[in-house]
């Protein structure tokens, strides 16, 4: 395993994956922000795990931007002592993203939760069930189309039914 320094890591990603990887402006609390095309995600993840020392997948989450859905990965490296942020864009209707559970088992429940909350399907996931909401629940609550009502509003509605 070749240990990459941070200065070498991002150019190495860019040279290896070309236009499928885009390094976005970084923020001070992460090592870097990298946008990856959906179909190259697993390859990039494998590269980061094997060559980039990112052995710990800390967080998989999603954001509903209405026009698209963004899936975020935060990876920790013990050598670089920091988090790398990977972002992937997918379509809002029937979103599909390849699963990274084959690389980090720890991503398993994070992906289940993202499916549960945002309706993102992770292809290749061994067991993509809901994790927090009950089986058979119809909604994905963190979508912006799912409206949260103030309690008083619900009360008024119930009274008028």
């Amino acid at each position, binding site marked *: 395993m070749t240990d990459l320094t941070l200065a070498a890591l991002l150019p190495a990603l860019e040279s290896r994956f070309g236009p499928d990887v885009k390094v976005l402006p970084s923020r001070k609390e992460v090592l870097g922000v990298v946008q990856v095309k959906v179909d190259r995600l697993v390859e990039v993840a494998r590269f980061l795990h094997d060559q980039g020392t990112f052995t710990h997948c800390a967080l998989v989450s999603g954001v509903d931007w209405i026009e698209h859905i963004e899936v*975020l990965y935060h990876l920790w490296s013990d050598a670089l002592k920091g988090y790398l942020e990977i972002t992937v864009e997918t379509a809002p209707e029937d979103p599909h993203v390849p699963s990274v559970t084959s690389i*980090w088992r*720890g*991503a*398993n*429940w*994070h992906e289940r939760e993202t499916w549960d*909350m945002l309706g993102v399907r992770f292809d290749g996931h061994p067991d993509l069930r809901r994790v*927090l909401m009950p089986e058979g629940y119809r909604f994905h609550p963190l979508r912006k189309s799912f409206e949260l009502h103030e309690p008083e509003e619900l009360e008024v509605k119930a009274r008028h039914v």
Partner: protein
Amino acid sequence: MSEMWINMGPQHPMTHGLWNLRVKVDGELIVDVDPEIGYLHRGIEKICEYRRYNEVVTLMDRTCYVAGIAWEQLYIMAAEEALNISPPPRAEYVRVLSQELQRLSSHVMWYAAYVQDIGLMTPFLYGMRDRDLILDLFQSYTGARMTYEFMRVGGVRNDVPVGFTDRCRKVMDWFDQRLPEYEKVCDNSTIFLERTKGIGVLKAADCVNDGVTGPMLRAAGVDRDLRRDRPYSVYPELDFDVAVYDAPDCYGRYRVRMEEMKQSVRIVRQVLDWLDRNPGPVLAEKVPRFVGTPSPPPGKEIYVERRGYPKGRGFSAMEEPHGEAMAYIINEGAEHPYRAKLRSPVFVNIAASKDYLVGYRVSDIPAIMGSVDICVGESDR
């Protein structure tokens, strides 16, 4: 013998909360595990999108009922990144003081519950009594014992009261005496040693790949503590050691937590000395009005409305008593976060349960799951 599924939970003394551990057993042997959580899901991430930045603090206390103030700081750090506000130094020290007191009280609570699970009753009473001393300290400066609502974007709500540092030092002196006693009770108990040593093993490589963090990870010999490795707040200025142990079993996790308690006492003392020497404000000036002041309740347009405040994203990670917690806040210029994501260490530690339960006996389950230190409020959010 034929295999069968057993539900341990949602109501079971082992669960310490509301969740269900489905175990597939062959006689007494565990062959498969399927944990089910969600019984305590309150949709905190969704509610955050409908609350002003400072109102979210109230929700964070409820996220974890044994370490509320840790989640307050986690959220506040991410929100401050997203809003580009920085707190005054004294506020940072009061925060770190709260963190370490909370770690102490959370670990003492864990000790009390765990040792009782194993079958020793007296340490439970020791633990609960000593935890009360810390809750009294919290009460004296936040006004509450469990749901503090103490941190604000840009600082903390109020300074510690007159005479607090001396009172706190007395409690720390008390803990200096008590912690060795805690250890003595366990280390001299054959029952405790028999039930924890070599049970619930999760090796270092599996811990890392499973995303397991906190005392479980350090018990397996992985030397990682975000307080030192990715310093936040004023931890770089404080002197402490990271507790690491090289037995990836229940006993190792107990050892790590015991050592962490001693280190917390050490940190608290340093912070108290600093607080005595350095008076100052505890809330930043120029915190934007709409971040701090309430206005009439919003309609559904809240996340479309733009107020012209600079957009930003905030990410924070910290060493919470249970492990590494993370928060991710997206600020789109409105009064409310556009998205708030919380990463609970307990959620991931439960997810990995198959790896450290399969192969052990049903009677080991309370000892193993107890050593994970589960807080269901936190894993379900």
